[in-house]
C-alpha cells in the first residue's frame, strides 16, 4: 500500500461510466470519479439527484433494495467490487457506512461495538477495542460511565458518533457517510465534522451532504450531481474537482448557481 507521502495520489475507489438502475429506471448515469486515499470526498447536489444511490453503490448496499442493478464499473483498490467472485459482505466489511438517521443497534453501547467486532471473528481484548473505537469517535468521555446502557438512550449526535465508532471498530478502509449530520443540531454537526478531520488520517471518507457549507468546510474533493436529460431524468455528475475549485471557480454554470444559492 502506498503512503501519503507518495507524490502520485492513491485512488481507493474509482468508477467508470457508472449507471445505476431501479428496475428499468435509470437513476444515475455517467459517473466517473476517483476517491483519493485519506481524503474527504463530498457529493453534493439537489434532492433526488441520486447522491445516496451512488454512495450506496460503493459498498453494494443498493442490492438490499429490490430491483437495483448497475452498469459500468466500480473498483476498490483496483478490484471490480461487482465481479462475480466478490462477496458483498466482504465489500461492506472493508467499506463501512454511516447512515443519515443514527441507527445504533437496540443493544447496549458496549454491545453495539462488541457485536460488530464479534461477527468478524474478533478474539482480542474487547474492552480495549470498545474503548479505542469510542475514543476515536470522540465519544468515550461522554459514555465511559454508562457503557451498558442502551445505545438508544444517547442523544442524536451521540448516537451518530456511536455509529461511527461502530463502523471504525472493524477498521474499514473507507467510510461512506450518507448525510450523517442532517438530523443533528449545529453543535452536534460541528462535532461530526471535527471528527471527520481526525478520521481522515486513518480512513478515506466519502460523504453525501445537503449542506453546502459543510462540503466547503470539511471536504477535500467535491462531486456535484444534478438531474439531467429529457423525459425520465437521471442524476449525473456534472463536475468533480477539488473542493476549493468547485466553490470558487466552478467550471459548470449550474454548479456555480447551486453553490452560490442561486439555484432554482
Amino acid at each position, binding site marked *: 500500500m502506498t503512503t501519503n507521502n507518495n507524490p502520485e495520489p492513491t485512488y481507493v475507489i474509482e468508477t467508470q461510466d457508472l449507471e445505476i438502475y431501479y428496475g428499468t429506471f435509470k437513476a444515475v448515469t455517467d459517473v466517473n470519479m476517483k476517491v483519493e486515499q485519506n481524503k474527504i470526498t463530498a457529493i453534493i447536489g439537489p434532492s433526488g439527484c441520486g447522491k445516496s444511490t451512488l454512495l450506496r453503490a460503493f459498498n453494494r448496499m443498493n442490492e*438490499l433494495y*429490490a430491483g437495483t442493478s448497475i452498469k459500468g464499473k466500480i473498483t476498490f483498490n483496483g478490484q471490480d467490487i461487482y465481479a462475480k467472485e466478490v462477496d458483498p459482505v466482504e465489500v*461492506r466489511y472493508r467499506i463501512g457506512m454511516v*447512515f443519515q438517521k443514527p441507527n445504533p443497534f437496540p443493544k447496549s453501547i458496549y454491545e453495539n461495538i462488541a457485536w460488530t467486532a464479534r*461477527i468478524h471473528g474478533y478474539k482480542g481484548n474487547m474492552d480495549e477495542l470498545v474503548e479505542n473505537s469510542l475514543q476515536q469517535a470522540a465519544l468515550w468521555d461522554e459514555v465511559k460511565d454508562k457503557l451498558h446502557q442502551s445505545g438508544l438512550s444517547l442523544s442524536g449526535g451521540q448516537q451518530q458518533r456511536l455509529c461511527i465508532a461502530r463502523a471504525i471498530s472493524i477498521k474499514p478502509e473507507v467510510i461512506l457517510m450518507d448525510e450523517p449530520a442532517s438530523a443533528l443540531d449545529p453543535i452536534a454537526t460541528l462535532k461530526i465534522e471535527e471528527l471527520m478531520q481526525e478520521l481522515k488520517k486513518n480512513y478515506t471518507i466519502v460523504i453525501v451532504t445537503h449542506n453546502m457549507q459543510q462540503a466547503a468546510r470539511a471536504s477535500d474533493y467535491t462531486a456535484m450531481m444534478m438531474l439531467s436529460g429529457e423525459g425520465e431524468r437521471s442524476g449525473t455528475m456534472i463536475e468533480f474537482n477539488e473542493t476549493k475549485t468547485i466553490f470558487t471557480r466552478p467550471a459548470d454554470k449550474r454548479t456555480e448557481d447551486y453553490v452560490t444559492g442561486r439555484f432554482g
Partner: protein
Amino acid sequence: MKEKEVIQGFSNNLNARNRKGVIWHIIFQASTLVGIVALIALMLNIVNSAFGYVAYEARVDPDTFTVDGVPLEEQNKEQLLTLLQSELSRGAYNKLNNEEPFEERSRENVFQLIVERIIRPKVVAVWDLWPSLTQVDEIRATVAQDFPTAELDFVSWLTYDFVTRPQTSEALTAGVRTAILGSLWTIFFTILLAFPVGVGAAIYLEEYASDNWFNRIIQTNINNLAGVPSIVYGILGLAIFVRTLEPLTSGEIFGLVDPTTANGRTVLSAGLTLGLLVLPIIIINAQEAIRAVPRSLRNASFGVGATKWQTVWSHVLPNAMPGILTGTILAVSRAIGETAPLVVVGASTAISFDPESPFSKFTTLPIQIYQWTARPQAEFQSLAAASILVLLVLLLSLNASAVLLRNRFSRRF
C-alpha cells in the same frame, strides 16, 4: 369570534362538519357498547349456570348404615372401611386398595368413597343462580312436595374437587382433570409443531424468498389456508396423522404400545392437527412482525458487514419476537378452544384416566363441554358451565404467561 367573511366558492359548513363528527363518535361508541353487553351477557349466563341449588336423593339411604345409634357421618375410619368392604364386591374393593392403600387414605377420603360408591346421590332437580337467590322459598316448597326424601343444597359446580377429579358419569362427582390434562398435552404438541415451523416459514418468506410468481402463489395460499374451516383440518388430521401415520402417532414404532391395540387417535395426532390449523395464522403474524422491523436496523447490520443470517438472528428476530409472540398467543388461544377438528380426529367421549404420554387417548375441555351440553339433564349443563369457567381461566393464564414472556423480550432495550 367574529365570523370569517364567506369567500366566494366556499361555504361556512363548520357546524355541519362538527355534527357529522359527533354522530360518528356516537356510532363508534355504540359499537363498543354492543360488544361489552354481549360479553357481560355471556359471563352472566355462564355464572348463572355454574352455581345454584341442587336437590339430590340418595339411591341408598345413609340412615340404614347407622351402627349402634352412630350415624354414618360420625363413624370413624375403621367403621367406614368395614362398611365399604361389606358393600363393595371384593374386586372393586381391591382395585381401590391398589390405587391407594386404605391405610394411607384419610377418613374423609373413605367417607367420600362411601358416598360415591354406596350411597350414590342422584340429582333430581337443579336451579340456576338467579332463581336460587331470588326464589328460595318456592324452591324449598317444590322440593318438599315433589321430592320429600331429597336434600337441598346450594352448590358451586366449580370447586377444587371439580378441577382435580377425573371424569365420571355421575354429575355430582364428575371432574375435568382428564380434560385439562388432555388440553395441555394437546396444546404442547400444537406449539411444538406450529411455532418453530411457522416462524421458520415466515423468516424464509420475508427474508430469503424472492418476489416471483411461485412465491406469490405460496403466499396467497397461506393467506387462504388461514381461513379454511377448522373441520377441514380435522379431516386432514384424520387422514394424515390418525390413518397414514398411525404407527407413529400411536407410538407403535417406538414399541410403546401393544400393536394390537395401537390406534392413532392420540394426544399427538390431536396436537399436530391443531398445529396445522394454527400454522398459517402464526406464519402470517410472524411475517407482519418481521416486516415491521425497521429497515434502518437491517441497514445498520448489513452496513457493518454482517451476513444475512447474522442480521436475521441477532437483530430481526429479537426485534420481531414480541410481535411473533402476540401472534402465537392468538393462535394458541384459538387452538385451545377448537372442538370440531378434535371430534373428527377422534377425541374420546368418556375417559377417566389421565393422558400420560403422547400416545394416550384423550379428551379436551371443549370436547368435554360439548358433550355435557349435549346431554338433556340440567345438572350436566351446570357442569358444562363450570368447565367453561375452567377453560376461560386456563386460556387467561396461558395468555398471561405468554404476555409476560413477550414483555420480557420487548423490555430488553
